[in-house]
C-alpha cells in the first residue's frame, strides 16, 4: 500500500454510516450496471492474478516468459537471498515505524477530541498537510534536511521518514474512534473512585483498542509498500519495494512474486476477518436492541 492508498482507506474508515438502506428501483440499465461491474472487477484484478500465477513460474533469472509450473519458488523463497534481506528490512522498518507512529498519533488524537487548547487550527493544518503533499516532495525535503545536517542515510532515516507520514493517518483513524466514545463510561469509572490511571487503562484504552489496531495495520501497510519516500532516504539500504525498483531493469525473480502474493493473501484474510467480526457484532447488537 502506498501513501495515497492510506488516504482513501482512512477516508472509508472514518466516513459516517449511511442513513438508510432502501433498495433502488429506478434508473436505467438494471442489467447493464452489473455486467459493467463484473468487467471492472476483472480489470482491477488482472495484475494481481498475473503476479500470483507467475510466482509459480519455473523461471531462471528474469520472470517474463512462462517456462512451466513449479512450487519450488514458494518452498525456497530465500534462495534469492537479496529478496529475503530486503523483505526482512521492510518488516523491521514497518514494525518499528508503526509502533512509534501509533503511540504519537494516538496521543494527538486523544488530545484533539478531549481537550481544549490554543493554536488548534494550526495543529490541525500541520496534521493535514503531510497527507496533501506529493510523496516526491516529502521524500526530497527530508533528504535535503538529512543532507544539510550531515546524517548518514540508512535504516534509521527510513524509519524516521515512515513515522513522519504515518502519524497523520493514525490521528485520523483513532480520532474517529475517540469521538464515538461515550464520556459517561469514564465518568462512571471516576465516580467509582478509579484513579486517572485506572480509568485510562481499564476503560478508555480497551474501548479505543479497535481504532488503534486499525491505525497500526494501516501504518504498517503504508510503510511496507512505500517506495518514493524510501528511495530518497534509504542510502544503500534495501527494502522490498526498492529491491523491485532496482531489479526492474534486469528482471524480477519469481521469489518477489511469492512474497508479494503471500503478503496479499494475508492482508485480504485480515480484512475479511475484520469485516466478518464487525458484521457479527452488529447482529449481536441488533438482537440486544
Amino acid at each position, binding site marked *: *500500500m502506498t501513501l495515497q*492508498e492510506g488516504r*482513501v*482507506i482512512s477516508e*472509508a474508515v472514518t466516513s459516517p454510516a*449511511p442513513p438508510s438502506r432502501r*433498495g*433502488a*428501483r429506478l*434508473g*436505467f440499465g*438494471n442489467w447493464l450496471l*452489473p455486467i*459493467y*461491474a463484473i468487467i471492472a472487477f476483472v480489470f*482491477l*484484478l*488482472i*495484475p*494481481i492474478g*498475473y503476479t500470483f500465477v*507467475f510466482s509459480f513460474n519455473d523461471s531462471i533469472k528474469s520472470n*517474463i516468459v512462462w517456462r512451466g509450473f513449479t512450487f519450488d519458488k514458494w518452498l525456497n523463497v530465500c534462495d534469492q537471498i537479496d529478496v529475503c534481506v530486503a523483505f526482512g528490512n521492510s518488516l523491521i522498518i514497518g514494525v518499528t515505524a508503526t509502533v512509534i507512529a501509533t503511540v*504519537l498519533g494516538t496521543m*494527538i488524537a486523544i*488530545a484533539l*477530541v*478531549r*481537550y481544549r*487548547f490554543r493554536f488548534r487550527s494550526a495543529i490541525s493544518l500541520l*496534521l493535514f498537510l503531510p497527507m*496533501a503533499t*506529493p510523496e*516526491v*516532495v*516529502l521524500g*526530497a*525535503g*527530508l533528504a535535503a534536511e538529512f*543532507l*544539510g545536517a550531515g546524517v548518514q542515510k540508512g535504516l534509521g532515516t527510513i524509519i*524516521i521518514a515512515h*513515522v*513522519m507520514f504515518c502519524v497523520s493517518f493514525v*490521528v*485520523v483513524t483513532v480520532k474517529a474512534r475517540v*469521538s464515538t466514545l461515550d464520556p459517561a463510561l469514564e465518568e462512571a469509572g471516576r465516580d467509582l473512585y478509579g484513579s486517572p490511571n485506572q480509568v485510562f487503562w481499564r476503560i478508555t484504552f480497551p474501548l479505543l483498542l479497535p481504532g488503534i489496531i486499525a491505525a497500526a495495520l494501516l501504518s504498517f501497510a503504508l510503510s511496507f509498500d512505500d*517506495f*518514493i519516500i524510501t528511495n530518497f532516504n534509504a542510502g544503500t539500504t534495501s527494502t522490498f*519495494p526498492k529491491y*523491485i*525498483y532496482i531489479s*526492474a531493469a534486469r528482471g524480477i525473480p519469481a521469489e*518477489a512474486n511469492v512474497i508479494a*502474493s503471500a*503478503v*496479499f493473501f494475508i492482508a485480504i484474510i485480515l*480484512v*475479511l476477518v475484520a469485516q466478518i467480526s464487525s*458484521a457479527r457484532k452488529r447482529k449481536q447488537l441488533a438482537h440486544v436492541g
Partner: protein
Amino acid sequence: MAFSAFATGTAQEQAPRRKSKIALLLLLPGILYLALFFLVPLVSLVITSFQAPVLNGDIGEFQTSFKWENYVDVVNTYGEHILRSFGYAILATIFALLFSYPLAYFIGVKARRWPVLQNLMLVLVIAPFFISFLLRTLAWKSILSDESFVITGLKALSLMAPDAHFTGTAAAVVFGLTYNFIPFMTLPLYSSLERLDTRLLEAGSDLYSTPAKTFLKVTIPLSMTGIVSGVLLTFIPAAGDYINASRDFLGGTGTAMIGNVIESNFLVTLNYPVAAALSIILMAVILVMVTVYVKRSGTEDLL
C-alpha cells in the same frame, strides 16, 4: 472524510475545558516530530532551491546564495516535463472518474439490498492496494508488452498498426496512472453515493424528468463531495508519481514527468538546488489547483 476530518469544529465545542497541561503533554511529542521532520524539511527545501551549485566543486556541492534565477532556469529547462505531468495527471483523473462512477454507483446504490455483496465488492476495489504498487505496474508492462497476446491480438485484428508499441508511450503512462489510482476515485465516490437518498430520484421521475436529466440534476450534484474528494485524491499522487513514467516501468524516452526529473536530479546527478526548486513548484501548483478547484466546486469545508 480524510480531507474534511480536520476541519470539523464540533470536537472543539464538545471538548471539556480540562487541564491543558495534559493536552500539552499528549500533543508535544507528535507535533515536535512533525515540525522537525515535516516542516523543517519543507523549509530546507525552499532554502536549497535558492543555492548555487559550485563549478568544478565536489559532486553535489553547493554554496550559500540567493539565486532566484534557479526557478527561471528550471521552468525554461523542464517546462515541458511540468506541463506533461499535469497533462497526464488530468487525463488519468478524467479516465478514473469515468471508470469509477458507474462502479461506485452500482456498489453504493444498486447493491444496497445485499450488504454482504456490497462489502465484498469494496474489498475487491481495495484489493490492488495489497499487492506491491511496483509489481502490479510491472505486471501490466508484461501483459501489454509487444510480445503479449493482447498486443499481438490487436495487431492481428488490425486494430493496431503492425509496428506500433504500447509500452513506452504516453498512452501507457496514462493507462498506468489511471489503473493505479482508480481505487482513490471509487472509494470516495462510493461513500457519497452510499448516502444518496433514492427517494429524490423517484421524485425526479414523478415530476416527469427523464432518467438522464435526473442523473444530471440530482445524482451528480448530490455526489459532488465524493467527486471533489476523488479528483483530489487521484490528481495529487498522479501529478507527483514517477514510477509509471519511468523507463523501466510503463514509460519511454519521451514520457518523463516532474517526479522523474526530481528523482534523477536528487539521486543521480546530485543537482540539489534544481531538484528542490522543482519540488517547490510541484507543491505550489498542486496547492493552488486544489484551492481553486475546491472553491469552484463549492465544497469549501473540504480543506
